């Protein structure tokens, strides 16, 4: 095991290398570029045996990935924001064909009011595509997530693509200490990919025909079930990973100080580390604050959230994107998950367009949730760090 001080972009490149990825279709977009640059270096230096195919667009990058994955090899790619949006059409072709592609999306704001900074409105727009979607908190988790993602994606009970989302710049371009595992250790955790089917003239098959209404519904149902089956596999893979490398991330969600908590926040991505610090502050003041870290947006942890919020009076939900319908996408899902649980759920939008989420913002979030836990009337959704007053 080596320890390196690297960015999350470089960490996931190490992950893709250790996973012995065979085909890497690539198209550059800020802030994903360091990933494909690093992979190109690995390959050109002979440290990694993979086909690096420089696509002429993200749409083609995913198309190349689909062709290669249907051809029976392990495929890794990475994108961000506008690139993910350009891929959108091809994103939908992957889960239904049960192709276990792993892709990193370096979160960046999408659309007009354009910027290159972190926001989750790019990946949230793909949450109903059938891809499993995970969000990571730090650079080590970014690397580890790639290996877990391949294990999960290629599990015969799952056979689905996995999108690993990480915060643009806050992780992608910030260096941290990352443990790089030995290749033999990783090979034991993630054996060589053996495809269930592949495009081979020795065994001809048609993949992705036109499907009339007589069959399409059953296929969608099977996809829905496969996503559901991944819940148990995610927990298994986390346990296996802990056994192999000594790090555990807790399955669909992770919890902090939730045992006796009266009020808590639910966060995803880098905001989690910040929230943990605020929980410690509040605990010092004798306040029963807790934290839930959302690791997977898909499958969404309905059951786990109901269990984790037992005894809780109020839960605030952090969103780094808005649905332009009053709240944010995570808030909507959490509210749906907890509709039969007697806990007050509030929405907290912050960090939009890459604006810093400061300790003060997080304290404000906890303050709103604490007041809600005491039965005080609070805003359903609060935008934190907004210049000027909310309506």
């Amino acid at each position, binding site marked *: 095991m080596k320890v390196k001080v690297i960015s999350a972009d470089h960490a996931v490149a190490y992950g893709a290398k250790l996973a012995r990825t065979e085909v890497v279709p690539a198209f550059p977009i800020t802030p994903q570029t360091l990933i494909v640059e690093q992979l190109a270096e690995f390959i050109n230096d002979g440290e990694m045996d993979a086909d690096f195919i420089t696509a002429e667009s993200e749409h083609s990058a995913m198309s190349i990935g689909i*062709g290669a994955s249907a051809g029976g090899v392990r495929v890794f790619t990475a994108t961000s924001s506008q690139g993910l949006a350009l891929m959108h059409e091809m994103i939908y072709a992957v889960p239904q064909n049960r192709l276990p592609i792993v892709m990193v999306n370096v979160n960046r704001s999408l659309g007009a009011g354009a910027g290159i900074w972190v926001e989750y409105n790019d990946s949230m727009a793909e949450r109903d595509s059938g891809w499993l979607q995970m969000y990571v908190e730090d650079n080590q988790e970014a690397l580890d997530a790639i290996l877990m993602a391949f294990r999960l994606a290629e599990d015969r009970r799952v056979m689905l693509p996995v999108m690993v989302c990480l915060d643009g710049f806050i992780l992608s371009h910030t260096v941290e200490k990352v443990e790089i595992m030995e290749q033999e250790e990783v090979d034991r955790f993630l054996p060589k990919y053996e495809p269930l089917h592949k495009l081979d003239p020795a065994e001809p098959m048609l993949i992705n025909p036109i499907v009339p209404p007589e069959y399409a519904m059953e296929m969608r149902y099977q996809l829905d079930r496969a996503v559901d089956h991944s819940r148990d596999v995610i927990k298994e893979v986390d346990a296996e990973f802990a056994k192999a490398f000594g790090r555990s991330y807790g399955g669909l969600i992770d919890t902090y100080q939730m045992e006796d908590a009266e009020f808590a926040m639910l966060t995803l991505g880098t905001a989690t580390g910040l929230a943990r610090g605020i929980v410690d502050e509040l605990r010092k003041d004798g306040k029963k604050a807790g934290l839930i870290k959302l690791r997977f947006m898909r499958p969404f942890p309905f059951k786990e959230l109901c269990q984790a919020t037992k005894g809780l009076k109020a839960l605030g939900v952090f969103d780094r994107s808005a649905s332009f319908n009053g709240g944010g996408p995570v808030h909507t899902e959490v509210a749906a998950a907890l509709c039969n649980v007697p806990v007050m759920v509030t929405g907290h939008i912050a960090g939009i367009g890459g604006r810093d989420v400061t300790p003060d913002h997080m304290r404000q979030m906890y303050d709103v949730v604490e007041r809600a836990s005491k039965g005080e009337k609070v805003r359903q959704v609060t935008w934190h760090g907004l210049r000027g007053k909310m309506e």
Partner: protein
Amino acid sequence: MNEEMSTIKDMPTNDMFTSGHGACAGCGMAIAVKNIMRILGENTTVYVPASCLIVISAMYPTSNFRTPYLYTAFENTGAVISGMKAAQRRRGISSTVVGLAGDGGTFDIGLQALSGAAERNEDVLYVCLDNEGYMNTGIQRSGATPFGAWTTTSPVGKVVAGKREFKKDLMAIVAAHDPVYAASLSIAHFNDFVKKVEKAKNKKGFRFLHVMTPCVPGWRSDTSMTVEISRLAVETGMWTLYELEDGEARTTYRPRTMLPVTDYLKLQGRFRHMGNDDIAKLQEWLCRKWYLHYGSEVEQPVCAVFEKPRPMRQSEEDHLHFV
């Protein structure tokens, strides 16, 4: 099959694209695909983008291809076949990876992915089955639709009648990528067809075949006239048979004399509305094209009415372009 096929008599009869598909009677595309697949043989992997071909041959749970067969979307043929080839290479499978795309999927929406694959010199065969319009979606105009033609998006109106633009010179775009092999094919010239598919099959690197595939409902033609229309296209200059090999371009068939374009137009309802002015405009365009392809060696009496044939491009650029 190791021996080189030189004529139609050498054609294998082992169909890889089987009958029972849903193509219209007289479909030029079905004729082309059936014969291309015979020549490519069983060691072939097929990608088909959104097109008539996918609809007529891959309605779950059936398939008309006896080879591995993938479909995903409309505009990505060049990209998907690149990925398929990379995977097979890594898995030790050496099959001919072929993309069978339409003109919309090649000239228009798929042009970018085609360019990407050609520029990377992917070891794949790209076939453009050109029926000169978006026929699968109900006969809409594409960049391949010829001047004057009626389509549902270039309708014959009171002010504007038919397409006002000339057909895009796709092969010039392909040639600009310096491919290993590129050729245009006609289902009316079968020995030529067989040789070119065979050549494309046996080369390594990016190969491109452009086949004219008459469309009975789209061209408003008789089901029995598909091959005759293909033949007349070549005799009138609406289609030219040539190949580009190792950077050298050459015509593979030279008509004895140029027939007037009306011989071609009158068999197709899509041109029925064309007036004399439009026909003359098309004829003049053809005369210039004819001169570029055949020089002044092949007679073109029909062009006498136009002052003198002018090359479409500057002569010093001629050698750079494959037209």
